[in-house]
């Protein structure tokens, strides 16, 4: 297990270098730089442009800028935002809890709903429920998030008035951020009204962000279960006289879970992608929203640092998934 772990961790280093190089290159391929983007119709005098470029090191050759950036990273410095003048690390740590909170809710929603639906569809293969569910899951997986988000807002918030439109908590509450997780902060503020507001603000974005993973998990669980249910050992278990429930949950589901765990792992990177749109629609103050803004501002340090931090997260989750595999299926450890 230790060799397996070390091998996996060893692979992280080249991945990091690749991520920094790629994000650096892509951002510099986009036309415009942070200084020019700031100038409006007033334009900017060439001598002033040169002075500001020099100040931000943008007048250096690209390779030198990259090397300087890597050296800076090795010193643990992710840089400072060109527009807000806050450090990238400070901004990330302020905003990340919001993304994590939403992401955890979305993935939990997807697993809690998707897994049982997949199992039921598999055990009732060919039934109306099975066909209906699979039809819905194709719809769910192919729904554009932006459209879906606006639809649920129009129906549940504007027309029915059941849920708030956007944000993390009603603007009437004033909760001092402590952990950055609204559900925890309101809990410690001991304000039931604030917590209710925070939960009600989570409902729609959770559903919207969780829809695609839910559909994928339900489909994957169904097909994995179908495969396992045809195995000889399932027939043997049934022949032993075990209840259907025990066979399905204990014998079939655990084995069917391996591909499902992969899907959940992969969903994390999809979730971060989806979070960019979901956070924009629901004015959710997370890292997705932050990265989009930084593209518009050509805020190189934020884009590079933010991408690196998000990539780190995806890498860590994938490592976690690999390790879980090893736990679920000892053959993989070899």
């Amino acid at each position, binding site marked *: 297990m230790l060799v397996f772990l070390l091998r996996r961790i060893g692979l992280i280093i080249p991945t990091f270098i690749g991520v920094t190089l790629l994000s650096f290159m892509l951002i510099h391929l986009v036309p415009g730089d942070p200084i020019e983007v700031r100038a409006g119709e007033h334009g900017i005098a060439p001598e002033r442009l040169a002075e500001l470029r020099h100040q931000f090191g943008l007048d250096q050759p690209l390779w030198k800028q990259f090397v300087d950036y890597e050296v800076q990273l090795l010193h643990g410095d992710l840089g400072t935002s060109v527009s807000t003048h806050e450090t990238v690390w400070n901004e990330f740590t302020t905003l990340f809890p919001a993304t994590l909170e939403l992401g955890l809710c979305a993935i939990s929603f997807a697993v809690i709903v998707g897994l049982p639906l997949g199992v039921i569809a598999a055990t009732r293969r060919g039934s109306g429920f099975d066909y209906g569910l699979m039809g819905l899951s194709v719809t769910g997986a192919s729904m554009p998030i932006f459209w879906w988000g606006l639809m649920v807002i129009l129906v549940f918030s504007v027309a029915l008035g059941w849920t708030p439109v956007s944000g993390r908590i009603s*603007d009437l509450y004033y909760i001092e951020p402590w952990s950055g997780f609204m559900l925890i902060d309101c809990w410690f503020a001991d304000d039931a009204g604030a917590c209710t507001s925070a*939960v009600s603000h989570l409902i729609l974005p959770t559903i919207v962000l969780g829809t695609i993973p839910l559909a994928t998990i339900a489909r994957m669980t169904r097909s994995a279960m179908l495969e396992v249910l045809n195995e000889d050992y399932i027939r043997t278990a049934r022949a032993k006289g075990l209840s259907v429930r025990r066979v399905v949950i204990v014998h079939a589901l655990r084995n069917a879970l391996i591909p499902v765990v992969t899907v959940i792992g992969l969903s994390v990177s999809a979730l971060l992608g989806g979070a960019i749109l979901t956070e924009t629609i629901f*004015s959710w103050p997370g890292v997705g929203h932050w990265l989009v803004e930084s593209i518009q501002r050509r805020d190189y340090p934020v884009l590079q640092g933010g991408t690196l931090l998000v990539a780190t997260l995806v890498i860590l989750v994938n490592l976690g998934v690999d390790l879980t595999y090893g736990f679920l299926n000892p053959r993989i450890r070899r």
Partner: protein
Amino acid sequence: MIRRTAATSALALAALMGLAAMPAQAKTLVYCSEGSPENFNPMINTTGTTFDALRPIYNRLVEFKPGTTEVVGGLADRWEVSPDGKIFTFHLRHGVKWQSNKDFKPTRDFNADDVIFSFERQWKDSNPYHKVSGGGYDYFNDMSMPALLDSIDRVDDYTVRFVLKQPQTPFLANMAMDFASIQSKEYADALLKAGKPEQIDQVPIGTGPFELLQYQKDATIRYRAFAGYWGPKPKIDTLVFSITTDAAVRLAKLRANECQIAPFPNPADLPAIRADKNLTLLSQPGLNIGYLAFNNLKPPFTDVRVRRAINMAIDKAAILKAVYQGAGQPAKNLIPPSMWSYDDKIEDYKFDPAAAKKLLAEAGFPNAFETDLWAMPVQRPYNPDARRIAELMQADLAAVGIKAKIVSYEWGEYRKRVQNGEHQMALLGWTGDNGDPDNFFVPLAGCAAARIGGGSASKWCNQDFEALIQKAATIPGQADRAKLYEQAQVIMHDQAPFYLIAHSVVYLPMRANVVGYKMSPLGGHLFDQVDLK
């Protein structure tokens, strides 16, 4: 853990059933702002979004009277201008209190030191704050302050004298702009001593009607009415900016009464907003101009007949209908109708393709000629869709035998190339900064801006016109200045260096119970005299 999960589920259920309780609160106005401020410094930023977030906190020596571009007293309650127009003496208001925060309690009232600090920070390398927070004072430079200022002198605690190198009447209006906001020198000194000078731009202290209570990036800005404010007390106790970047979501929040004012609606939503009896829709022509600039240095646009012919060849009404969708006012002058000295007697060129064709033939172009037509890649306040406008213009020009090729570059590159005069015809525009006509005529049509690399897209330099606008900038008295600007507009109309398209109309939807809101022609949003019925 289980206990919490169960409790959370119960709360979720309660929320779903619409049982969410609202706390009893002081009078709160929620404004759905369109983005986060870059930081809390009015000197280093240039976006309206950031200025809106700062205006509740800071004051200037003079202010724009709400709803107008008229300059009235602010932190200075009166001022004098010397007969030669070069010396502006400001007499400061007494007893103006500074706000405080948990790390700083002011020991003195506002005085001349704060004024001198706020300008020297932007002006002088030697000021310890000059390089703090990046130190790019764009507006201070854009308004040519370094070239204009000779000295800023402290006469006494409550008198400050600005000496200019040459007379410039619009200087007073510049003093009402956001970059001229006044920061506390005492706070700056305390932060410098504590080794965290950049905090002056993150945790602001001002003299304005509201003080900052909390800022959560991309989520909310929370202000509280400042009890020590020198002006009329705000009507609301708490002001919240609920940051909502998407226009459709802003409207949804307004409908759900989660915010009471939501700026920048989608033009397509305007009919529905008008139809909603819970909402009010304010509108005002923006202080802006969208135009097509002819490069007057390049043939065939050196010939005034060609410029006039194009003015007759393009159907303005069609552009306004298709692109501005009711949110635009046809332009016949460079300055908008709401600005003083606007010459309403001028008659716009009529849309007449046959006459245009005839004029082109007279100019020596009986047959087709080719040109380029540049379209910005971005949406701007004065031009919602440059590409679409370019296509409409292209079709109209083809009808009179002009083959226009649409060209576009990335925004920064586009502006740079236009400044360098690489285009033949280019779409561009302008948004006014201080409500003075000088702020339109000089940067867009003055001879200094017409040089290669200068800001003018028309590269037009007419000596008669130039003499008028130069004189108008140096004499006092609005009526006398207005006469000169009116004459200048007649010359501009005759010489047609631009095809003037439109002044966009700015809409502001709000809940019907909001009272006392005055739209600013300068585009900013102010809340101190706003109330909720």
